[in-house]
């Protein structure tokens, strides 16, 4: 591991913001800390940045302990949700500030600033003041400022949350491109699962100050470990073993034997839906979402969500039959329900 956090603990009075959290980032890896607000993900990022002090545990970079090192000596780059460009400096001065502090000659700074402005595709704004730029532009400058000093780690604190949808998607791709090109190990905090799925090599899903599950985006989406992860990573149908027995009996055999309370997690696109006069389920409503159709279906065990691509003959009120392939179901631990995820 390049950057390691071991048993990180942070208390605010009697509130435990982080409870013995351990994570790691490999060289060149893009890691997303994902979780609902208040789950401790920003606290963890601030501890790594050196903006807050650990109450327990250890943070090491290539084996060297960082705990006693103030933020300014860590050599990390950070981008905040609020852009946080220095309003009294021009764009070029903002980007070059870290280099100026390091005593880099003026001409070298100018060359590096020009190069970075090209990299973030804003070559013409060097002499503008931050206030003259749009939010998306400001955030790109903030990104350029953070990577100007060749940071050992790039920390992104919800960098896209303040932007509107279209700009967000653009900047998301740009962040990914820049990170890939420079190979900077990056840790991004986000509460948006779609963002995490699109960007991350590894997602660390957090809740209540602890890591719930860490893995690749595919792992977390297709093989969630708990009900919380299943619900947080997109839409899922969660069925009790009894429900499964009634509705999809052939899904039962792969169920692991662990004694914990378990639920079957079936993603909406894994359900085959066909009109059938003798079907036991009925289509209650259909939302057309462009690339797909989302159907709310009343089944004998309660409402289910089904998504279909392309044309589908089902109409509201139709009786339908449902089928799920045996390998399309994951058994998850029934922990706590997650706040409802925002549908894509």
């Amino acid at each position: 591991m390049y950057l390691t956090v071991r048993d990180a603990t942070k208390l605010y009075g009697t509130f435990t913001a982080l409870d013995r959290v351990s994570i790691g980032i490999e060289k060149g890896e893009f890691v997303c800390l994902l979780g609902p607000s208040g789950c401790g993900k920003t606290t963890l990022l601030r501890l790594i940045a050196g903006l807050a002090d650990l109450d327990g545990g250890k943070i090491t970079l290539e084996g060297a302990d960082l705990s006693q090192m103030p933020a300014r000596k860590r050599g990390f780059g950070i981008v905040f949700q609020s852009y946080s460009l220095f309003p009294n400096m021009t764009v070029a001065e903002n980007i070059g500030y870290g280099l100026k502090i390091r005593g880099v000659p003026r001409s070298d700074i100018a060359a590096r600033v020009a190069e970075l402005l090209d990299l973030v595709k804003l070559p013409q704004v060097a002499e503008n003041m931050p206030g003259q730029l749009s939010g998306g532009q400001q955030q790109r400058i903030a990104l350029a400022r953070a990577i100007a000093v060749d940071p050992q780690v790039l920390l992104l604190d919800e960098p896209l949350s303040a932007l509107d949808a279209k700009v967000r998607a653009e900047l998301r791709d740009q962040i990914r491109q820049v990170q890939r090109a420079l190979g900077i190990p990056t840790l991004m905090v986000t509460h948006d699962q779609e963002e995490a799925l699109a960007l991350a090599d590894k997602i660390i899903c957090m809740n209540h100050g602890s890591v719930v599950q860490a893995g690749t985006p595919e792992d977390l989406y297709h093989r969630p470990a708990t009900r919380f992860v299943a619900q947080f990573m997109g839409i899922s149908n969660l069925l009790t073993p009894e429900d499964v027995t009634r509705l999809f009996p052939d899904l039962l055999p792969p169920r692991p034997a662990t004694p914990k309370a378990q639920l079957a997690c079936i993603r909406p696109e894994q359900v085959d839906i066909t009109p059938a006069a003798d079907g036991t389920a009925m289509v209650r409503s259909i939302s057309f979402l462009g690339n797909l159709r989302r159907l709310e279906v009343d089944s004998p065990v309660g409402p289910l969500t089904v998504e279909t691509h392309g044309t589908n003959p089902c109409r509201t009120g139709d009786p339908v039959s449902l089928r799920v392939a045996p390998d399309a179901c994951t058994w998850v631990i029934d922990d706590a329900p997650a706040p409802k995820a925002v549908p894509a």
Partner: protein
Amino acid sequence: MSASETIRRPSRHRTFDSDRLLTAACVGLPLLGLILFFAYPMLIVFLRSITVDEGYGMGNYVQVLGSSGFWRATRHSLAMGGATTLLSVFLGFIIAQGLYRCAFPGKWLIRAVIVLPLLAPSLVQALGLIFLLGRNGVISRALGVEIEIYGFWGLLIANTLYALPQAVMIIGAALVLLDARTYEAADVMGASPWRQFRDLTLPSARFGILNAGFVCFIITITDFGNAAVIGGDYSVLATEIYSQVVGQRNFNMGAVVGIMLLLPTVIAYAIERQAMKRQQAGQTTGQVAYRPVFAPLRDLGMAGLSLLICAAIVAVIGIVVYASFVTLWPYNMSLSFKHYDITLAGGYSSLWMTILISLGAAVGGTIAVFLLGLGLRRLPQALAQPVQILAAMPAAVPGMVLGLAYILTFNSTATPLYLLYGSAALIGIVNFYHYHTQGFLTVMTGFRQLPPALEEAAGSLGAGLGRTARDVVAPFIAPMLVSVFFFLFMRSMVTLSAVVFLTTPQLSVAAVTIMRLDDAGLTSQAAAFSTCVMAVVCGAVLAMKMILALMQRRRG
């Protein structure tokens, strides 16, 4: 293993970090100043008030409380404070309502005129009234009546003019907060303008009005200049301290009266701070500013009233400037510069000295409150809070009491602080600590607007505290620093109450010179000297406006 076993408390003993040392210095030095030049002198005043021949006792209090002179002065102070408060809040509300809730042209003129009394030593109002309504006053002579301007009525008018700018500013700030959409909603619901005023405007402005009332009360009962010039036989607590200390050289008794004057101001100040908090609590973000539309009956009436009040201010201040040029008031009204040749010993030296002292107080004071604000941000709340409370305390202390505290503290050979006595530096210091609270609170407002992420961004780019302060924090709150600088400069130029005890025959300041000129019967020269002070302060105001406008433009 439970969580608590593995959790280490935040370590207090981190490895050496120069930023921690710098933070300690940022808070420590201004704090040392506050203790040495505010807390300690106030303690001395208290101790002196209970000092009797052999040790401590309540003898002085018994003596003061038993004297009819003290009770008369107290009665007068409270009556004058109450009357001035009512009048200035009433007039201030009219002007604020006109400025922020009515539509008529020429508001800039009202705004400009209303601050005039702040740009002059307080005794200028009194001088102006004497030139207007005194025995040889313009109005008295024109009407052929003899008006007794010395005493309650003259002092009431002078104090009201002096307190009015504060009332307008505070009430105006409360009125500006009212959201236009609230009024649109009321319109749609069919509320008449009068109902809107009664049900929306008045209730929302009530804390502003309350706040203005307490501020006016404090200003009035602590003011010395007006009372000294136009009070006549109407003795108030401020003049009582002066006569005890300067007239009878009775320092302990002066200390007792000072403590007695401190009581009402501390109470009023405490209530005012609470009212201020309640008013701020009512603020919401994303407001839509109220844009009044022209309503002839309301607006012409309000414009007329506002202009009338402004005319009175212009008349009182203007007559002083005019009189300074009149050859021999009221017998030879031809104009000349002869009164600008100051005949009192020292001449204009005190004016230059005052400018120098004011610059020193402004520079040193601005730096001190900036460092304090910078350091407090990095201190845990439990440590920062007591410092903040101490920093906000000087506003509760009347200038007379602070001045008296200084003379008792620094004119004693018991400590090395004696070296400062009689120096210009000490006058600069007393001016700064007299107005410490306002400067500190202004800078803190600036610091509150500074997003923590800006400093964190600078920190993660490698900037230490010193560098962050210089490159990021100071430029961000520069407008506040400019305001504090000029506020301290202007107050130091015109203040009288705190410095009146600290001047010596060799070292005087402008306001004291004006008082001496007036005492010596050289009223026209006093007017001339006042005009010079006002010219300097007006120049400072213009410079401040220009600098702030330039900053605004550069930031885009």
